[in-house]
């Protein structure tokens, strides 16, 4: 595969098909009414990236497309974007819809600030953060007009790369620790065009401090600058077991706390919610539900058991 980035492509003004067509026909006349001057679509030239100023254009990924471990993922209960409709995929679709509508500001609500940065966290380990984060990422990858960057922020026990069956390499923490390392080098592209993964990288003894630094904020701003359709999905260490998640909460617009049904206690939930105060928009996701009082069972409807 060749390196590809739309920003590197040569561009001739007025050369695009759309621009040439608009010369012949005023597409917008129906929308804006007759008699109004036509608006000619223009491509804004990207400004040059300056080191000390936030980049206005998000970096694009150019690494090779890695194929994921489909068998492993399916066996472990993950939902592939092009897989069949199952109960769990429907459930994640519902979650995904809510997250997306929150960041876009549907339903009469304002769009959330930094709503496209989503932190998946939980109180204790083993409650399903990685499972939910990967599934959400896979589910979002099926969306037609957004791209997802799944960031593994669980530096102590990174598991996203191995879960997806991607080659391990330098990651988030390496970028934070080494300013000279461009983040584009680390991002792994997958066979699903809109899904990219940023591995955790090699953990340091000062993960939390690196996360809390201004560089992190700058880096994250860079990642989403000018591209509101890019969603950063963070998988994090347990809130009550490590501190990075609490710091990350300050960088994200939405926090999704995974609660394990029949297992997470009220005390743990309250404690964890207190640590998430830095994030204004905290939502809960109940994982591992074994009991359904309303009889909500997806999947059967589509002919395949969940």
């Amino acid at each position: 595969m060749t390196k590809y980035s739309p920003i590197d492509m040569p561009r001739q003004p007025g050369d695009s098909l759309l621009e040439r067509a608009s010369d012949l026909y005023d597409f917008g006349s129906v929308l804006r009414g007759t008699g109004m001057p036509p608006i000619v679509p223009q491509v804004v030239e990207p400004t040059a990236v300056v080191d000390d100023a936030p980049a206005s254009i998000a970096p694009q990924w150019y690494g090779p497309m890695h194929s994921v471990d489909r068998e492993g993922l399916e066996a472990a209960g993950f939902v592939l974007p092009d897989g069949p409709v199952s109960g769990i995929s429907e459930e994640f679709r519902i979650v995904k819809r809510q997250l997306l509508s929150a960041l876009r500001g549907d339903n009469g609500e304002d769009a959330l600030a930094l709503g496209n940065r989503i932190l998946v966290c939980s109180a204790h380990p083993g409650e399903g953060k990685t499972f939910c984060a990967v599934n959400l990422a896979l589910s979002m990858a099926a969306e037609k007009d957004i791209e997802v960057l799944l960031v593994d922020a669980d530096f102590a026990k990174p598991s996203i790369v191995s879960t997806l069956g991607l080659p391990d390499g330098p990651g988030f923490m390496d970028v934070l620790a080494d300013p000279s390392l461009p983040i584009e080098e680390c991002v792994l592209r997958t066979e699903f065009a809109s899904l990219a993964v940023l591995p955790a990288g090699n953990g340091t003894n000062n993960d939390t401090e690196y996360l809390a630094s201004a560089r992190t904020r700058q880096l994250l701003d860079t990642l989403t600058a000018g591209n509101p359709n890019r969603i950063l999905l963070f998988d994090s260490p347990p809130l009550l077991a490590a501190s990075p998640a609490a710091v990350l909460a300050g960088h994200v617009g939405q926090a999704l706390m995974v609660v394990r049904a029949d297992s997470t206690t009220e005390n743990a939930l309250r404690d964890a919610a207190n640590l998430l105060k830095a994030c204004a928009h905290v939502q809960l996701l109940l994982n591992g539900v074994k009991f359904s009082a309303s009889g909500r069972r997806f999947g059967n409807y589509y002919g395949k058991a969940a």
Partner: protein
Amino acid sequence: MSGLYDEILIALHGVWNRRWLALAVAWGICMVGWLVVSLIPNSYESKAKVYVQTQSILPEQIGISTGDQQQNVNRVRQTLASAENLEKVVRGTDLAQSVSNDRDLAGKVAMLRANIKVVSTQDNLFEITGSSSDTSISDGANARIAAQIAQKLIDIFEEENVAGDRDETRQSLSFLDSQVAQRGKQLQAADQRRVEFEQKYMGLLPGTGSISARMDAARTEINAIDSQLVAAQSALSAMNAQLAGTPASISGGASGGTSALGSVMGEIAAAKARGWTENHPDIVALRRQAAALKGQGGASAATGTPNPTYTSLKSMQAERAATVQALQVRKGQIQADLNAMTDRQVSEPGVASEQERLNREYEALKTQYDKLLADREEVRLRGDVQSETGAVKFRVIEPPSVPSKPAAPNRPLLLLAVLIVGIFGGLGTAFALGQVQTTYPTAARLEKAAGLPVIGAITETLTAAQHVVRKQRLKLFLAGSGGLAGVCLLLVAVEFVQRGMA
């Protein structure tokens, strides 16, 4: 209602999630419970029925009512558990083997008190139950001891009823005897005092009664003697006159002198009878004639025969004189006594009342003495009736048997109860823990409790390996649950086998 139904389902779901805890708790409770049940000593119980028949014909005739007898039986029943009786039981049964000092004995008595039961099911039917649960001896020995206790209690019951009556009779008799003896002595003393008094004060006046009565009697007698005396004196003087008029001898027919003198004397007497005095000239003449005749025929006078009339009159006169004499003497004597008495009465006025007091005392004592004597005889009769006719009869309807199986504890039932308690204890613990340790089975609950929006609920997904593990765990859980029931059944079976062997 659907809300309640959901709540119940959720609670059950919570219990199911903690099934391992529930199982562990159930096992723990059951193990401890079964241990405790197995340590409860076997208690053997021996039951006997005694029928007490109270006779009513003869005893009632002499004043022993059936009610009295019933009361007696009840008294014995109530006092059957007295320390004294229980000591008898201990000494009379195998319990005595393990008694070495008074403390042991007291301990056994206390144990017995809790282990015996006397119930009167009907008026006359008594159920005596003895039980034994000594851990230090074998089950068989316990059973034997229970039977012995019941038997001994029956013995004591019977014995007390009969001996109690006899004792009572004996006690009453001895009391009455002593009272009778005492009263007898008192009576004797009173009698003695009375006699002494009479000797002292009333020896002079014969008769009975008080002093005044006797004095009255004496006075009456004196009056009577007086009149008798007058009569006797007049009779004596009449006799004297008659005697004077009767010649001492009658002149014989052969001697004229005597007959002449006799005729002269006859003439004199006739003249005197006519009322002539000695100075009458006829009489004087006749006297001279008589004197002459006497001088003439003195010798012939001597030969005259004594007059029999004169002789008899003479004796009669003597008799009358003696009577007068006797009456006079008697009157003087009585008069003297009376005078002496009167003198005493004047000098000692309390004598009369003293005598009355002594008499009263004597009379009172005598009355009581007589009554006591009668009572004693009655009691003796009663006692004889009770003991010899068997006023209360005992019939052992159901003799105490040696029980073959323990009366308590009902081990199979207890084992099952422990199992049930264990199961419910486990379930309860799981449920309580679910209530204390809040977790969230459903999104609705989570949202309600946390106050944060819940945007989704992900059904648990299991990999094939997890499925296998879960199945294995389920099997393990079922095995654990089944094992619990199995152990319970095993213990029940062991219990029955033991009983069969015992």
